[in-house]
């Protein structure tokens, strides 16, 4: 697959921004060691995983406004059934959770294909259903997880290796092989043009079901990561809405075009670092974190605007 230079330019620019912000944050802290890196990584792992799932779906020409709710549901399921259990049981429930998320994703994709209703509408509605299910499983905050299992994800002591792996293994093990496979290429194909893909022999509805299922796997991973990091379930619609908003913002900042068919998952993962740093750095200065929402919103619009202007100039 050809990788366009401009796409990589964008990733490099985001990487530059991340480096600048990291130094900035590092300056705020009295010491910047292994433990601080671990804290930062634990902060971004859920955002990044969700952003990857959302980006994948946007690349395939869809959008999932229920992705946050999906993650919260898996968070509730795994935290409820892993409380006070052995390592193996916790792991079993984590795997079951991810499978459920994939199934939910596949169902969403199936509904969209079968009904012909727009992605936005279907996923707005399913977000309600999924939050309802999450409240059904876990009516309030609670639950827990095996401590060894949690530490496998979030790292023992000061070591930041485990969260780093949690962040990059999905890219290495799921995204890179997927991107090179027939399925991955057909994701890009239906994202660019459903009609052209259909005429080239791509089974559009089956591809879309797979697309949402893979998005669901990332949402499931996010839910399991939330369980491992917070060691509790938090069934709140507010959290899921903010998470969904962040996932779209990270996708856009990470160079994924909302028109579909353009972008990768590495950019959004980096962009979620930016989204994590903005409120954290502001809090470090004692500024109301509400300002960071203003900046984040403005930044997202600005990026889309610049992207649009660049595309318009290139066309001329």
């Amino acid at each position, binding site marked *: 697959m050809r990788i366009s230079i401009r796409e990589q330019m964008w990733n490099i620019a985001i990487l530059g921004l991340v480096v600048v912000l990291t130094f900035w944050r590092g300056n705020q802290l009295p010491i910047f060691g292994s433990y601080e890196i671990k804290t930062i990584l634990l902060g971004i792992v859920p955002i990044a995983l969700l952003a990857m799932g959302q980006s994948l779906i946007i690349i395939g020409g869809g959008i999932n406004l229920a992705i946050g709710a999906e993650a919260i549901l898996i968070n509730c399921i795994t935290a409820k059934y892993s409380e006070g259990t052995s390592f193996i049981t916790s792991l079993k429930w984590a795997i079951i959770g991810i499978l459920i998320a994939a199934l939910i994703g596949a169902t969403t994709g199936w*509904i969209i294909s079968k009904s012909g209703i*727009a992605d936005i509408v279907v996923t707005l509605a399913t977000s309600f259903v999924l939050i309802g299910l999450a409240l059904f499983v876990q009516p309030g905050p609670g639950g827990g997880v095996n401590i060894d299992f949690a530490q496998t994800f979030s790292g023992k002591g000061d070591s930041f290796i485990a969260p780093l792996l949690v962040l990059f293994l999905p890219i290495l093990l799921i995204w890179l092989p997927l991107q090179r496979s027939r399925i991955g290429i057909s994701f890009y194909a239906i994202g660019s043009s459903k009609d052209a893909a259909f005429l080239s022999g791509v089974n559009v509805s089956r591809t879309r079901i797979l697309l949402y299922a893979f998005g669901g796997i990332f949402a499931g991973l996010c839910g399991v990561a939330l369980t491992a990091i917070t060691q509790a379930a938090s069934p709140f619609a507010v959290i899921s809405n903010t998470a969904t908003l962040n996932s779209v913002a990270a996708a856009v900042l990470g160079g994924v075009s909302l028109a579909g068919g353009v972008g990768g998952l590495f950019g959004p993962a980096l962009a979620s670092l930016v989204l994590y740093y903005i409120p954290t750095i502001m809090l470090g200065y004692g500024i109301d974190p509400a300002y960071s929402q203003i900046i984040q919103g403005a930044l997202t619009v600005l990026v889309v605007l610049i992207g649009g202007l660049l595309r318009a100039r290139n066309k001329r």
Partner: protein
Amino acid sequence: MKSLLFKNRSMVALWLILAITFVITGIVDSYFFSIPSIGITLQLAAPLGLLAAAQTIVMLTGGIDLSLAMIATGAAYIVSVKSNEGLSTALLYALLFCIVIGAVNGIAIGLFGVNPLIMTLSMGAILIGVFTVGVSTFLRGSSRMPDILVTLSSGLIIDPITWPLVIWIIVGGLVHLSLTRTGFGRVIYSIGDNAKAARLAGIKVWHVQVAAYISCAILGGFAGIMLGGQSGAVAISLANSYLLPSVAAVVIGGTSIMGGMGSYSGSVMGALILSVLSYLLATLNSSEAFKQLVYGGIVLALAWVYSSISERK
């Protein structure tokens, strides 16, 4: 002729769905068939109906406004805080706020080509930030609504006619007329149907989009003030729970999210159906989990039924 037939068929389907939910609600709760409770249902449907009008206008142009809930909340908040400077000043401030936000949305989407979903999602986030900060700084003050607005939002004229219902009928009627009988309405449909063709026909597409988003924001402000009046005081989460219903009412009412197709009368039916539905869910006295589950499920099912009816034209 065929399109007329199709339009009638979908309207008939909407009436049927409304009748079915109405009867089921009546069976579950016999008090529902009384005049006062119908009055209350209509009163609660009014703000949703206005939000649906706002959403219908932008969705007909092929857009969507996900900042609508925050625009509504913001307008209500401004009115409540500025009401010590006089009611008309307060309303003027709120109007100005709606025009500015609508214009920013419209210019970014129409002139700079920002995706409507991203623009309005981000605008919603920005407004949440602005008002969260504002509550403790530049917008400090009473969050109580002025009495006259409370009366206009929930006052009874004669059972079951309430002031908000009258306002909804007047404003909604104006929206319906301007969409069906005026040039503004026609250009809105035409740019939603095919923006390129509209541009070639000499329509300044971005002007129309800016006008659409401004009207949307003003209608949202209206609805927000009404919601504020109904609850007596304004909180930052005032209209949040109305965002999905505003989109759902329009979609159930048969307006295509791609634009160019649909009507406000459909959205009114959608708003009524959803209002009866929330009454039903409220009387079932069920858990929050069950309510969310059923609400989302039914919205999806109704949208599905509707789209399958329209496919069989």
